Structures are given as C-alpha cells and as structure tokens.
C-alpha cells in the first residue's frame, strides 16, 4: 500500500462514489476517476506482469502511453483484453482482472523466466529450436504460443453494436488542451466550421493536471469557459471521448467512445462510433508524451512519469505514494516536487541529471533536498518500490521511498502527421522529434509542435487557428491572448553508459521487456538500423507502440554506433494512434448488412413458395420450387426439367443484365464492342453476341434484341452484367466519344420470365394483347417485339431459348412482375405449367451445352468454347487482334467438350479432373477438368461439360474422371458438348 486519496482537491466528484472490483476484490472510487487512479487511491500498486519475464508492474503513466497497467475489462462476451487501466473511465460495477499471470498476480509462477533472462535475450528463438524439424509445430511452438500473448479474448461474438458516420469541416482541431482550445477559438470566431475532437471526457488537456492560472483563474476553469464559448457557436462541434486515430488521404478517422463509460450501452446506443472526418485544414494539438529515464530496475511499481504523478495529484486527488522522490532531466520534475509540497508531501530527494537548478524553482530548492548531476543507480522492492540508490558527486545514497517520479523529456505527439510517411525531424532544442513538413494540411500546435510554455502555446496556436481560417477565406480578428503565469521547460536526454552488469535490468520497452542489454546485443549482432533493432528486439511493438520507449533505445543505439540521434533515425508511426476495435471500424456492416443483396420482383413469392435461394453475384435467385411430392431437391430439379421438356415451365430471368443501346450509331458501336456482328441483326430480331476483353479472352456472351434501327438491348449474363456495362461506358466515353450512341443499364426496371416448353406458345398467346399471334411463322425463334400484354401492360417479348425448347422471354416493368408471374401460372395451369428454378435451368443448359459462368471464367477463349466460328474476322473489335495470338489458338488447349460416364449412374461433379486412362493419374496425365455437371433426367445419366486438352479432336475417347478430394473416380467418354437435340429442332416446332 502506498498511494492514497488526498483529503480534498481534484476534478473528481466525491459525491458520487462508484463501486468496482479488480481481481475479485471490491473497491470504491469516484466519478471522474480512471480505473488506474481509483486503484492507486485504494493503495493498489501491482497491476500486471510483464510479457516475457513476468516482472511485477504498476502504473507508469496516466494515459494511452501506458505500457504496464493492462487489464482484462468486463466479463463474458464483453470481455476485452489489454485495456489500459489509465485510459478507462471508472463506472459503477466495473469488473477488471489482471492478465498474463498464473496462478495469481501476486504469485506468478512464470516469473522464473526472469531468472533465465540471459538465455531469453533478444532474438534467442532464432538461434535454437531447430532440431528436429518436426518438433517445432509439435512442441516448441505451442509452448511459445501459450507463453506469449497478454490477455484473453472473449472468443465469442461481441454483443454490442457500432456505428460509422461522416463529418465535414473547414478546420479540424485534434486535442482540446490549451493549444487546441485556443486554435479552435480563433478559427471559429473567424467563422470557419470547426470540429474539435478531444480524447478525454473533458477539455483542458494538461491544464487539468497542472496548477496553472490563466487570466487569474485556475486553468481548468479557463478551459471550461473556452469550451462554453465554442459550444455556443453554431459553426463548432466539440466531440469529447473522441480520439482522432488515423490520417488517410483526404480524411481522418476518429473513434468516439459513446458508451465505454457505462457498464453496457443503453438501448439504441452504439458502443462506439467510428468517424470519417473530411477537413480542409487540420491543427494537430495532441500534446506530448513524457519519457521515462533508463536506470537499473526502473520498472518497479511505484516508479511513475513525473507528469503522471501530477495528473494523479491534481486531477484525481491521488498521491502516488507516501514517501516520494524525483528523478528528472527536465524542469518537469521540479513542477512535480512543487505540487507534492503543496499537497503537504515533501519529497525526500530530487535528483536532477543536469548541472544546475532551474532558477524558477527556488522555492522547491529550498524545501527539498536536491542532488544535481545525479543518477539513480538502482532500486529495491519486491512487488513495489521500497528504496532507491542515488549517486551524485561521487557519493551514493539510499532513500527509502514508495514512489519515484521520473522525467526524461517530452515527445511531441506527432503520430498523426507521420501517417503520411513524412520523416520526423530532430529538434536539439527539445531533444525530441518534430513532425517533418506539414503533410496534407496538418499543422502541429502546442506541445505537439514542441512548444511547451503556455504563453507561447497560446500565441502560436492562435496564429495557427487564424491561418487555417484565413486559408478558407475567413479573416480572424486579432486574438485576445489569455494571461498566464509562465512556466516553460525543455527536455534533455539523460546520459546512459553501457554497463554489462546492470544493463540487463534497465528496461527500455516495459511491456515487451526490452532492456538496455538487448539493445547492446542487437548492436553486437548487427541489428543497428532502428528498424532492425525494432524487429529483432520487438522494441516499440507493444500496445503503446513505443511511446515511452523509442527515444531511449535510439539514444542508446546512437551512442553505441557513434552516430547522432537524427542519423540513427526513428521508426515510423502507423495508424491507429490508439488501438482501435475491429467492430468499430466495421460499424454496422455486420451480419446481414455486411453486403447488400439484390432481389427480383418475385422474391417474396418465391420464398413463400418455399424456394431456397442461391447467390449469383449480389442477386438472390430461387434455386428450386419444391412441392410436397418431391422426394428431395434433386427430384425437384428433375421434375422441373421434365415439366419444361414435356409441357411448359416458367422461370425468373430478371437478373440478366439489360443494357439499352440507343442512337444512330448504335450498330456501329456494338460492332466494335462485340466480336460478333451486331449490326447484322434486323429490327424485330434477336442475335447472339460474344464480347471479348482486349486481351482476347471471353468477357461475356448473350443475346441482343433489336427493336428499331437505332435501338438495341443487350442481355448480358447475370455474373458479368456490371463489368460489361462499365466496359461499354468506357468504350462509349473514352474510345469512341464521336459516336452517336447512348447507353443505359435498365436491369432493375424489368421483371423478365422465361416461358419454356412445347406448350409455351399457348401460354404466351394467352398473355399477349390481341391481335398479335404467337405462331411459328409470325413469331419464330429469335423474334423480338415491344408490345402490350394482359390488357395494356407494356412488355417486351423475345422468342429465345436457353433450355432447348420452344421458349419465350417476356419482360414487364418490374412493378408488375409479381402479378405477371402469378398470371403466367394461372393461364399456364391448363397446360400443366410449373415454375422452375436456377438449378433446373442449369441442368437444361448443360444438356444443351451452353457455356455459362463456370465456362466463361476469364481463362477461356471463344476458340476454347467452340465459338470461333461465330466471330467476325474481318473487322477490328475489342479483343480481335490479341485473340489471334498463337497460344490462344493452340489445338492442344483445354477446350470445351461434353463428358458422359460409361456407367450413367457414376456421379460427375464440377471440379473433377479429366485424366488419361491406363496410366497413373499425375500432372503429366492431367487433361483438364469438369466445369459443370448434373444428373440429366432427360438422358437418365450424369453428364458434364468440361475442358479437355485437344478435346474436340478426341470425341469418342475414353478418359478417367478423377476427383480425389471427393473420392470420385470413374470412366467417361468425351462427346460433343450438346447432349440434347443437337440440331436445335425443338425450338422451331
């Protein structure tokens, strides 16, 4: 027990006590506390164990830079590992547990790793565990994996919801400390639209932690009044609990923690909201992070960043310990000493690495023993700090303390500016890196710009705010700058001298247990680039991304290599600034809303009819229309096929892409886009088309209906419709803008049904309005007409057959689709009509040998599909030239054929391979594969389409169908791809 709650002070609400538990033990804190401050106030100092050596760890910081105090928060499905206790707002009923320890936090058996530290040095695993090779997966790796990792994921679906949203502004201000508030005020007063994002639940930043006075009032009060002025302006949006977490081209991403300060989100509220913010200018006023100092055993609970000590003292009313010492290389330690004094706690010693005491702190120098040019040589304590050994002026002294505030300077929070890859630049002045260049309109201000004195911060932030507003055409009035009692400091780097005996316990990266000796080892083994250092030792790769670690390690490497720090360089900061829940980024694109679906006009009808649906691209298509008499779905498909082959069936083909091509040059245009000659289709007729990609491979095939000389309608396949349309737009806009042709995708406007089977003409006749006759002579196959049906409903009718029977496709405006489908079933009843689904359609098209998606898969050519004869050779069109390349016309290519098993009941499946018979199946005997296969109720046999090397030259040959991944193996014969009515007589009857 060391830390405790002061009798008064702090920005907590002592009238609202909150109960919570940590490792099952009950505690009480106050509204306004973080989990860390509340635990410290209760005297808890041991928060967790380190990654590798399981050393006891406490709280180092008061923010997102915390490497040590990680806990598992909440329980059950809401359990969240690796939560920084310093960044959790306390709420009533909070439950937290320590992690990465066994059996308990106080006694962690894994701490023996610490004894083996000399073995577990950086990169030790690269040098061993190699023999025998098979032991890695079986033995070594499982042990390493179990030992590694921090907390435990819940392992079940997150019950909370998330939202995404968009915001736009002239000026985005990141951070509402003095710099952010001042910049926002200036820009907003000028009239610019301002968004001010603040990570914390309240504005003020460092002002909440320090005993500053602004305009004669305590600084937090000034912050509140500045926020009030901003909130009153209509052009300002203040977003609290919102961390700007990444900079992307053209926008920022921010996370709003809407409900994390409640046990669970209230009804209709998301847990978090992920913002995309588009800002014309951005002011980065995100403050700075303090650096610890490097000394042996610098990781004991009770050793804390100096500014964090002040944060606990002033913002939370918590003293970090009862007997404190200070070890600093900046004025910040002196500020902390002064605040300790004010709280009635006199530090036992202030050790400053510098040679002289800062003049502004004469009051402190008088009250506290000071050791200049001093160093902490070591610390003592079991589960927490109990003493420090200090050297100064040749003498060593031991002090019994339970808290040590350390300060090694400040790193400006420039991460967001670095996301664009800009190299940070070193500032000798503050011994830290500043944002390099102002990338993409991001302007650092305040501590983030390396300006630490409050008066200068106000002046420079106001100027930045004014400049941003001015860039958007808003003239800012000269700002009235608040008056402050000036305190300014700069950082310097504490000297570190390699000392093999002690370096092993100088922790640089606390969470990953990277020590000074690891840096020395990396140097010795040649990992001297900072990026190699990082990757070899894992320095800076932990959950706080080296915020507190990187500079010390860099300084060490610089010293070892005899280079300067800027020569040594710094590792790159990457998004996100603060770790970001995957659920939040996904937002509400979850479950069914992951991706949109497309439904046809008869979707509801089909599902009422019990039809299962199949995904084709984004579409849902009814796959079968089962009736109770069907034994199973295979029987359904067989019945549906039989119905079409013998009577009449109706199916929904609305998903076919429909592209209107209109204009005087429509025919010319299509002749260039298609490999077939579309212009040869006469008005009132349909024609087959093939489209190639420019590289000569098949893009799509389908039908074109021509309704008038200047009006064509292209029916693209469902799967390719979108890309075909994009391609045609490209041809129209980029390649041949001179042509008089307009395109429109009208797929969604029409419900279209195929009515197929020998009795289809009668059904169609019953639909169309008089006096049109649907006869073989008046409306033969390949006819197309615009007409009315069902007493005046506009419709398009084409005599097209995909099934191989006499068939029609009738389309009506989509709003009539459901009614038309019912009507077709009604009038068709007399003819024995039944609806059929995509499965039966697929069976029939395989029986007919029509290529579909699995044949036109982007890897096949018209030649492969046996369509070469349909192409016109004598005109230039997309894909014409490259389709003539030799390899694309090689007879040995895998080309389309049909396959029938010698035993008709031997199951063929798409994906099986075709291999030579009589030799062992191998890559050498592999001839090709089956692309589509089905049971053909018509032929009473399994049949398949497939691609076989030189296939059309081998009709009649016996081959082996080899499907080892599904245990299939049978003999089959190569046949022509059309199994049914090869001469196409049936549609003409």
């Amino acid at each position, binding site marked *: 027990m060391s830390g405790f709650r002061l009798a008064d002070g702090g920005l907590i609400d002592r009238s609202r006590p909150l109960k919570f538990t940590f490792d099952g033990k009950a505690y009480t804190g106050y509204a306004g506390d973080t989990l860390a401050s509340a635990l410290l106030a209760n005297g808890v100092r041991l928060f967790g164990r380190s990654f590798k050596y399981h050393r006891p760890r406490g709280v180092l910081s008061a923010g997102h830079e915390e490497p040590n105090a990680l806990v598992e928060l909440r329980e059950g499905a809401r359990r969240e590992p690796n939560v920084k206790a310093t960044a959790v707002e306390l709420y009533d009923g909070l439950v937290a547990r320590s992690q990465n320890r066994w059996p308990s936090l106080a006694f962690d058996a894994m701490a023996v790793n610490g004894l083996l530290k000399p073995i577990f040095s950086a990169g030790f695993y690269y040098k061993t565990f190699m023999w025998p090779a098979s032991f890695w997966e079986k033995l070594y790796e499982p042990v390493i994996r179990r030992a590694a990792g921090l907390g435990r994921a819940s392992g079940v679906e997150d019950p909370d919801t998330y939202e995404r949203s968009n915001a736009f502004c002239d000026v985005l201000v990141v951070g509402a400390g003095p710099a952010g508030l001042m910049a926002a005020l200036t820009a907003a007063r000028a009239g610019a639209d301002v968004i001010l994002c603040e990570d914390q639940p309240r504005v003020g930043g460092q002002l909440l932690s320090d005993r500053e006075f602004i305009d004669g009032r305590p600084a937090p009060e000034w912050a509140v009044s500045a926020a009030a002025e901003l909130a009153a302006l209509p052009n300002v949006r203040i977003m609290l609990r919102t961390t700007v977490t990444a900079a992307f081209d053209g926008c920022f991403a921010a996370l709003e923690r809407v409900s994390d300060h409640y046990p669970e989100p209230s009804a209709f509220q998301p847990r978090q909201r992920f913002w*995309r913010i588009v800002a014309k200018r951005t002011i980065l006023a995100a403050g700075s992070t303090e650096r610890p100092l490097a000394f042996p055993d610098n990781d004991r609970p009770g050793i804390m960043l100096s500014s964090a000590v002040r944060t606990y003292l002033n913002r939370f009313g918590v003293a970090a310990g009862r007997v404190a010492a200070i070890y600093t290389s900046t004025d910040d330690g002196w500020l902390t000493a002064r605040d300790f004094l004010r709280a009635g706690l006199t530090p036992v010693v202030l050790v400053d690495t510098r040679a002289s005491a800062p003049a502004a702190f004469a009051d402190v120098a008088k009250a506290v023993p000071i050791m200049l040019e001093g160093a902490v040589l070591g610390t003592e304590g079991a589960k927490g700090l109990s003493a420090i050994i200090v050297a100064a002026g040749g003498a060593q002294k031991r002090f019994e303390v339970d808290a040590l505030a350390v300060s090694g300077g400040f790193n400006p929070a420039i991460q967001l500016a670095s996301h664009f890859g800009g190299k940070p630049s070193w500032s000798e002045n503050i011994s830290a890196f500043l944002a390099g260049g102002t990338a993409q309109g991001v302007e650092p201000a305040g501590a983030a710009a390396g300006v630490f004195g409050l008066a200068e911060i106000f002046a420079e932030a106001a100027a930045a705010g004014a400049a941003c507003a001015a860039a958007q055409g808003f003239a800012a009035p000269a700002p009235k700058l608040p008056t402050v009692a000036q305190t300014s400091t700069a950082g310097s780097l504490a000297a570190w001298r390699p000392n093999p005996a002690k370096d092993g316990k100088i922790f640089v990266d606390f969470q990953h247990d990277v020590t000074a000796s690891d840096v020395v080892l990396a140097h010795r083994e040649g990992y001297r680039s900072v990026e190699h250092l990082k990757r070899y030792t894992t320095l800076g790769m932990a959950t706080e991304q080296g915020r507190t670690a990187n500079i010390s390690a860099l300084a060490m490497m610089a010293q070892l290599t005899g280079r300067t720090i800027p020569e040594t360089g710094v590792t790159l900061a990457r998004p996100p600034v603060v770790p970001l829940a995957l659920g939040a980024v996904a937002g509400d694109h979850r479950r069914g809303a992951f991706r949109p679906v497309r439904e046809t006009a008869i979707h509801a009808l089909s599902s009422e009819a019990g039809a299962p649906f199949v995904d084709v691209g984004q579409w849902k298509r009814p796959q079968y229309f089962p009736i109770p008499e069907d034994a199973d779905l295979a029987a359904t498909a067989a019945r549906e096929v039989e119905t079409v082959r013998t009577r009449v069936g109706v199916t929904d083909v609305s998903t076919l892409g429909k592209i209107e091509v209109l204009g005087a040059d429509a025919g010319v245009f299509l002749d260039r886009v298609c490999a077939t000659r579309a212009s040869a289709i006469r008005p009132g007729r349909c024609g087959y088309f093939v489209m190639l990609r420019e*590289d000569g491979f098949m893009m799509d095939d389908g039908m074109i209906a021509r309704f008038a000389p200047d009006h064509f309608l292209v029916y693209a396949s469902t799967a390719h419709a979108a890309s075909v349309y*994009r391609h045609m*737009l490209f041809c129209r806009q980029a390649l041949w*803008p*001179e042509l008089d042709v307009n395109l429109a995708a009208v797929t969604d406007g029409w419900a279209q049904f195929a009515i197929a089977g020998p009795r289809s003409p009668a059904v169609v006749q019953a639909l169309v309005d008089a006096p049109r006759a649907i006869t073989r002579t008046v409306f033969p196959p390949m006819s197309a007409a615009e007409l009315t049906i069902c007493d005046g409903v506009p419709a398009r009718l084409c005599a097209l057959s995909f099934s191989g029977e006499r068939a029609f496709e009738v389309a009506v405006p989509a709003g009539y689709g459901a009614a038309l489908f019912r009507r077709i079933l009604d009038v068709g009843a007399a003819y024995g009509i039944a609806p059929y689904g995509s499965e039966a359609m697929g069976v029939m098209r395989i029986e007919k040998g029509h290529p579909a998606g699995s044949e036109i898969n982007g890897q096949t050519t018209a030649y492969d599909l046996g369509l070469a004869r349909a192409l016109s050779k004598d005109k*230039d069109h997309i894909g*014409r030239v490259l389709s*003539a390349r030799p390899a694309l016309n090689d007879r040995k290519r895998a080309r389309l054929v049909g396959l029938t098993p010698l035993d008709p009941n031997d199951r063929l499946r798409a994906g099986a391979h075709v291999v030579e018979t009589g030799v062992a199946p191998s890559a050498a005997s592999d001839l090709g594969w089956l692309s589509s296969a089905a049971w053909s109720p018509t032929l009473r046999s399994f049949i398949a389409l497939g691609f076989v090397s030189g296939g059309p030259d081998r009709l009649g040959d016996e081959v082996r169908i080899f499907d080892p991944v599904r245990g299939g193996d049978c003999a089959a014969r190569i046949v022509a791809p059309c199994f049914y009515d090869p001469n196409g007589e049936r549609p003409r009857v």
Partner: protein
Amino acid sequence: MLINCPYCGPRDLLEFTVKGEARARPDAAADLDSEASRAGFVDAVYLRDNPAGRHKEHWLHASGCQSWLVIERDTRTHEIFGASLVASDAEGAKS
C-alpha cells in the same frame, strides 16, 4: 482519397473504380493479324510505364455520375493534380 469529379464535386474513393494507366487504344493495322497490329496491342494491353511520380489514369465515377475520368496523380504522394471527363466532347459538363 478525395477525387474532385468535374460533375459531382469532391467524392470519396469508394465511389470510384480505377482502370489504371490512361492509354489510347492502338489503331489496328489494315491487316489485323500483322506483326505491327499485334505488337501495338501487346504493348498497349500489357506494358506500363508505371512511374513513381505523375501518372495519368482512367477512373470511373461508378456509383456517382458514371463518368469516366482522366486523373493525373502522383503515385508517391497520392496528390491529385486534376480530374477531367474523358469524353472530350461532353458538352457543358462544367456547368
């Protein structure tokens, strides 16, 4: 990334599809199967300058106004220098 569509104004990347380097379609020689024709198309379809720097590209404002655009962009910084409608004759597009 924000692309300033000449018709729609600044819009997010997700509304667009990108085709890659903006290249003209070669004229096929009279003999479509001549070496010259083929070489021209092989070059145009497959070979790229792929510069690290300014690059002219074809983009489609797919879920916007469906215009194909020519965009000049720096492939190192993603800075966009301009976006225009690809169709030179798109009358009065800049209203």
